[in-house]
């Protein structure tokens, strides 16, 4: 193990390390802690210049209540859910199939198609922006959740296919051979042999894509406008315009907007990190 395990050091170093941990964490998260404190302060603290003192009264319920009941925030949140969940399902389904095809079968253009997906996943969004916006307009899907979902599914398929294909490559191939010798149809092999083995990959990918799509901002402002279809990342800017300079409400709004992926991360931490670090170890 590197660095040297701290248990093997002198007691002084050990205590020092234990003390350093919370302090460094405090500094690391300082900007965030500040916002969390802001979000439970009453409005008078800001007009009175009490920015960094303790909240004069705990106004958490009031502030968050305003966010939930007196703004468009719940709508934006719902939009985000209705955009994110179908995208996750669509992208994972498409990439399971594509990953299966590229991971199991040997055919001449296999690697070229695989690299097309990988390369496409790296391109800057701006090169797609105008044509994708036109396409969405032409289909009559501008400013709809469906328009956003379709694009996200397509774009995320690149990364997901890369992920799935590499995962399937690592599965024991004799299992598939054995099923073939038994005369099992190919689609049945996919459904009954491969899919059950891919469960960890599906879980990991779902959490990752959920976070990516929830946090998307660029496409939200390119393909939607207004509270009918906009997800929360784009909605937060209009929320902030509505409550200009009301820092306690803007802080509460930001925390609400950031919460779902955070909750997802803490609940599914193992899968999340497994997904993120796939390939970081040989």
């Amino acid at each position, binding site marked *: *193990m590197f660095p040297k395990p701290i248990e093997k050091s002198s007691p002084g170093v050990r205590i020092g390390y234990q003390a350093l941990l919370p302090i460094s*964490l405090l500094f690391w998260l300082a900007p965030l802690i500040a916002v969390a404190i802001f979000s439970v302060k009453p409005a008078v603290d800001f007009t009175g210049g009490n*920015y960094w003192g303790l909240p004069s009264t705990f106004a958490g319920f009031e502030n968050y209540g305003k966010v939930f009941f007196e703004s468009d925030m719940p709508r934006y949140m719902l939009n985000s859910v209705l955009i994110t969940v179908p995208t996750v399902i669509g992208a994972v389904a498409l990439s399971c199939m594509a990953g299966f095809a590229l991971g199991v079968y040997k055919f001449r253009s296999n690697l070229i198609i695989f690299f097309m997906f990988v390369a496409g996943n790296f*391109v*800057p969004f701006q*090169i*797609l922006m105008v044509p994708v916006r036109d396409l969405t307009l032409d289909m009559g899907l501008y400013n709809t959740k469906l328009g956003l979902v379709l694009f996200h599914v397509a774009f995320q398929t690149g990364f997901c296919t890369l992920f799935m294909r590499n995962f399937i490559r690592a599965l024991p191939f004799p299992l598939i051979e054995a099923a073939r010798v038994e005369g099992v149809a190919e689609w049945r092999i996919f459904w009954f042999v491969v899919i059950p083995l891919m469960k960890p990959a599906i879980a990991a990918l779902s959490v990752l894509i959920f976070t990516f799509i929830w946090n998307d901002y660029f496409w939200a402002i*390119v393909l939607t406008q207004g509270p009918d279809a906009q997800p929360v990342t784009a909605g937060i800017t209009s929320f902030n315009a509505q409550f200009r300079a009301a820092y306690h409400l803007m802080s509460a709004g*930001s925390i609400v907007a950031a919460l779902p992926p955070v909750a997802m991360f803490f609940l599914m931490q193992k899968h999340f990190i497994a997904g993120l670090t796939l390939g970081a170890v040989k």
Partner: protein
Amino acid sequence: MANAALTDMRAIEPKRGWYKRNEIAITPWLFLAPAILFFLFYVIIPIYQSFALSLYSWDGLGERTFVGMGNYTELLDDRAFEVSLWNNFKWLLLYLLAIPGGLFIALFLNQTVVGIRLYKSLFFFPFVISQVVVGLVFTWFYDPTFGLLNTMIGWVGLGPINVLGDPTMVTYGIIAAGLWPQTAYCMILYLTGLNAVDPEQVEAARLDGAKGWKMLWYVIIPQLKPATFIAFVVTIIGALRSFDLISIMTNGGPFGQSRVLSFYMFEKALSEYGFRMGYGAAIAVVLFLIMLCFIAYFLWSMWKEEKVR
């Protein structure tokens, strides 16, 4: 028994349909079809369309007029384009600091004391939050009247500085905000990498008297190569995709000094500054070509890997 099975098989053989006989050859294409179609329509074809569009002048609604290389020659004299391009290089270079930064935190946290798992998750936390919120948080952090930064440097008698209002500092301020989640990402890659470091090699090196920097440089870092590669890929992509932070924190300002290509393109093509789709596409093409150098390198590395297998 075996003989009976064989005759059985032969009896079935002619009855098998065309699909059955070609199953192995056809199945992959059936499985690939939906993904390829989606990808073609939303990613591959739009890239070509953008290239084509960059040769036209178009406001998004009316007729397109062909201007040839006109948009590109205009770029050459465009001061704002120059600033954006230059800022992109700053982003590329400084964003890479996330890699050593992440390694440093990973080394710091790679211990087995009580509660360390929680510390690791909390250090990783910034990456999970959307860039929009990170942008807002840092805007307030930098605020000249009440921001935490100025409060802190006020304690040592300095300040106040207006990071986001100062044309020379603004890009660095936004990059610092971007480094926060990116470092967390690199940290988690390295923590996973460190977990897989071969303990026998470390012990052997220790017996040979290697420690500290030497150990890190000659024994640990070579073993972290896959993690470093991924960290490099995601950091480069992240640097060139920077858009959210700029849009939220400064909207390109002050005086357009914090623009990067991705933001400038959006501004030209889709914001109140005018719908110059063709000109925007030309900017996007330049950004794409920069990215293409890296994509080619990534693919080349992956291709080498594939050949080894």
